[in-house]
Every structure is written in structure tokens, then in C-alpha cells.
């Protein structure tokens, strides 16, 4: 039976851990916590992956919880989003291998919930309890210019995630919707609103191609959405020449409580979700179903009490082939865990 094998448990954070982010190329994990720090973790040696060390603690720049952490595509910078209403930009100084907060982005009225870099690294997005999504242009010399303030969500915005290839942004909100944002001649606008969840949407992730996305909600379901372009042969109605995103699969009846995070592996195509019910679930596409507009996903493994009795807040597949079977999870127990997905 497919299952998750625990590789390592990383201890060090002094409060609940909210999110983990894998470095784009190196075997390096960044985690952020209610203890107001980001920690960087690395295996003790190049071939022993059962023992990890905290190699760096980024602290001092935020006065409150760090809710989200994201690597730039080159892995040379880190962005941190904090409840203190600021976003920190951190850079590694290769001379003494030291991390320094080189910029602080201000503007949101209150807690920032998520930060994300676009695939080229040219844009940064942040979102906040103030209901807005901000798009920042990354300029030289650690300068960031706010290009747009998007205020169409009617509630707290929980997460932003960029398309894996294009300059398309998705945001998930306490207003139960997901919005897709695009640019037209320097103007950012909402190209589609995805309705279907019946409570807060906490998390979302695109598939490798960016043609589909998965979302996780307080309504205890996961939804898989597919993009239909204008004049699609399936006859899905589109508006104003914009693609329409439509639910093609709903995964319900699995998690017993709020689903806090979802990750769609760019390597093996599996979907991992974590919940307030203390479990990690892995979903695989059923190869027997051939209809691309109505796929079937099977829950092929469930790891109960993966962080003991605690909520699991974040899950993240390793981003490339090197360790494509690895998964990280973070929990209310202050721990970070690294798992290996074993197929048989």
C-alpha cells in the first residue's frame, strides 16, 4: 500500500508553525512561525536525510507572527508575510553566508496572510485581512513598487499563488471564493471568480502546467478546477473573452475538520492535503477514468495523527525531481516533519 514514511522531525520553533517553503533548487527548507522567526533547515550530511539541522534563524524584523514565507525563483531571496502588516524581503550575503532583511514593504492595513513570487521573479503578491491583494514590481537594488491594489474580495484574503508559468495570480478568501487576476496594459483586473466552496478557502495550488488548480476549504472539501478557454469544444460558457474556471472534481467525505493546506506535486501529480483533523491525505488521479473533464481522484493513503493530536497547518511537496517523493508538513505542535512518499 502507498504510504508516507517519516524521514525526520525538525524541532526548534517556539510556537505553532504556519508554513514551510522548499528552496527551488537546494535541499533547504524555510519555515515560519508564531514565534516571529523563520528557520532554515538542511540535512546533516549530503546523503543522510534522517537528521536535519536548523542552519539559520531569521529574526528581529517582524513584531508579530510570520504567517507565510516564500523563496524567490532563484532562491537568493526570501519574502516573509507577517501579522504586523509588513512584508520582509531577505537576502543572503554570500561573503559571510548571512541573511539580512533588506527591505520592508508597507501598505496593508492589518495582518498579511500570504506572499508569493511570480515564476519569473519579477512580481510579488501579498494579501491581507484588509480584504486586498497587492501586486508589487521587483526593481533593482531591493526596491519594490506597488503596481496595483485589488479590492474585490469582500473578506479576509487567506492566500495568493502565482501560475507556474504565466503572470496570472489566484487568491483564496474567507468570502468563500477564489479570484483569478490578470494584467491588461499595466492594469490588473479580476478575470474570474470561482464559486462553489461553502466556507473559507484556505489554500490553493496549481498543477504543473497551470491548466488546473486545487483548493482547500473550511467546508472540508477539496475542489479541482479546470480552465476553459473561449470557444472551448466542451461548450463551457466564457465571458468577455476570458477563460472560465470550472469545478471538475470535488473531494468530500475525507477530512473531518477544516482543510488548512493543499499541495499539488509538480513531479508526481499527487495532491496532498492537511487538516485540523490531524491527518495528511494523499490523492492520486485514477488512471481508469479517461474523461479529462470529469476525472476521478482516489485517496490512496491517509496518515492519521501525523503531528500527534495537533492541527496540521501546511503541506508542501518537494518542487523538483531530486527528491520528488518528499513532503513537508508543519503543525500547531511547533514541529516540522519531512516524509517520503512510498508507492508500494
Amino acid at each position, binding site marked *: 500500500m502507498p504510504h508516507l514514511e517519516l524521514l525526520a522531525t525538525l524541532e526548534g520553533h517556539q510556537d505553532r508553525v504556519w508554513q514551510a517553503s522548499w528552496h527551488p533548487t537546494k535541499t533547504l527548507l524555510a519555515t515560519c512561525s508564531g514565534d516571529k522567526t523563520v528557520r532554515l533547515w538542511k540535512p546533516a550530511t549530503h546523503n543522510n536525510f534522517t537528521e536535519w539541522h536548523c542552519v539559520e534563524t531569521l529574526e528581529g524584523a517582524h513584531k508579530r507572527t510570520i504567517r507565510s514565507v516564500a523563496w524567490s525563483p532563484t532562491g537568493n531571496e526570501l519574502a516573509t508575510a507577517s*501579522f504586523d502588516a509588513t512584508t520582509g524581503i531577505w537576502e543572503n550575503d554570500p561573503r559571510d553566508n548571512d541573511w539580512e532583511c533588506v527591505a520592508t514593504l508597507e501598505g496593508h492595513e492589518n495582518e498579511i*496572510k500570504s506572499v508569493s513570487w511570480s515564476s519569473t521573479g519579477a512580481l510579488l503578491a501579498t494579501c491581507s485581512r484588509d480584504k486586498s491583494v497587492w501586486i508589487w514590481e521587483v526593481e533593482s537594488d531591493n526596491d519594490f513598487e506597488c503596481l496595483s491594489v485589488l479590492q474585490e474580495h469582500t473578506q479576509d484574503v487567506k492566500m495568493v499563488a502565482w501560475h507556474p508559468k504565466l503572470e496570472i495570480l489566484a487568491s483564496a478568501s474567507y468570502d468563500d471564493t477564489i479570484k483569478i487576476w490578470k494584467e491588461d496594459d499595466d492594469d490588473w483586473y479580476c478575470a474570474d471568480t470561482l464559486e462553489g466552496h461553502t466556507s473559507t478557502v484556505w489554500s490553493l495550488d496549481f498543477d504543473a502546467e497551470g491548466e488546473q488548480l486545487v483548493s482547500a476549504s*473550511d467546508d472540508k472539501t477539496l475542489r479541482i478546477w479546470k480552465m476553459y478557454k473561449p470557444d472551448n469544444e466542451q461548450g463551457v460558457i466564457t465571458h468577455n473573452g476570458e477563460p472560465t474556471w470550472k469545478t471538475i472534481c470535488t473531494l468530500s467525505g475525507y477530512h473531518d475538520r477544516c482543510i488548512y493546506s493543499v499541495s499539488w506535486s509538480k513531479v508526481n501529480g499527487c495532491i496532498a492535503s492537511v487538516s485540523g483533523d490531524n491527518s495528511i491525505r494523499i490523492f492520486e488521479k485514477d488512471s481508469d477514468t479517461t474523461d479529462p473533464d470529469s476525472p476521478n481522484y482516489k485517496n490512496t493513503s491517509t496518515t492519521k495523527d501525523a503531528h500527534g*493530536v*495537533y*492541527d496540521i497547518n501546511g503541506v508542501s511537496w518537494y518542487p523538483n525531481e531530486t527528491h520528488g517523493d518528499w513532503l513537508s508538513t508543519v503543525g500547531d505542535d511547533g514541529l516540522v516533519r519531512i516524509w517520503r512518499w512510498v508507492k508500494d
Partner: protein
Amino acid sequence: MSQNLINANPTIYNTKTFVRKETEAEFDDDVEDAIDSQEVFDLIRSISDPEHPLTLEQLNVTQFDHIVVDNEINKILIEFTPTIPHCSMATLIGLCIRVRLLRSLPDRFKVDIRVRKGTHQSEGAVNKQLNDKERVAAALENNHLLEVVNQCLATASLRGVEVSN
């Protein structure tokens, strides 16, 4: 003294000063005492109302009958009843109950706190906010709010025993 109370003249209920009866088993170290609704009620009954020098029990906001504890699946559901259907203190009261339980119950419990059905005009919004742990975490990093919560919790340890009128 604030003259703009949300509910200036609330009904005060006689507190049924029912106290847990001690049983033989409770003194036996070999018997595991499960946490029951009486225990949970005792934890929250003496929390003070944010605007009156009265406890949630005296205002009938918390009631023993509206607490469900399931030890098997580590789940607790608490329903509370705001004194008036437009009470703007409902979220704060719910937050106080949540914080009290966060501080006193074993970590294994998942606690859902809800307004009793039909007793508040913004029931859905209040329930959603109280059960969003990220917003609860953010609220508790607000020192002013934390101070107010701590004030309401200052009497919580009375556990219904020494309720003064």
C-alpha cells in the same frame, strides 16, 4: 462609567450552585476521570461579562445543557446564548470562552464554539470568526484585546462556587 451599554438592563438568573458531587472513583488514582460537560461548564461558568459585573452563568449566556463533550473523538461543542439578539459583544464573549479553554483543557481537544441557533442576528458571521483559528491567533496578539479578555477571565477560576450577587 460608560452610559452606552449594549444591554443596559439584563435579566439576572439565579445560579443553580450545583457543584460536582465527589465520587469514590474520583479519589481512586487508578480510575481515569474523563473530562465531561460538568468539568467544561465549571471552567467557563464564572467568566465575567464584558460589560456587567456578572458571570456568564448569571446572565444565562452559558448553560450546562449546551455543552457536549466526546472524549472518544476529543471533540467539544459549546453553544452560548447572547443576552440580546443584536449583542455586539457576542464575538468577544465567544473569544473569552475559547481562550479559557485553550489555557485549561488538554491539547487533544478540538473545540467548536457557536452561538445557540436562533439567538443572534449575525449567528453565521460570529460562528465563522470564532472558529477561524488564524483570526483568533491574530486577535490574541492584539494587546488591548488580550487585556480585555484577561479581565473577563479574572473571575473564571471561581468555577461557579463563590458567585456573588
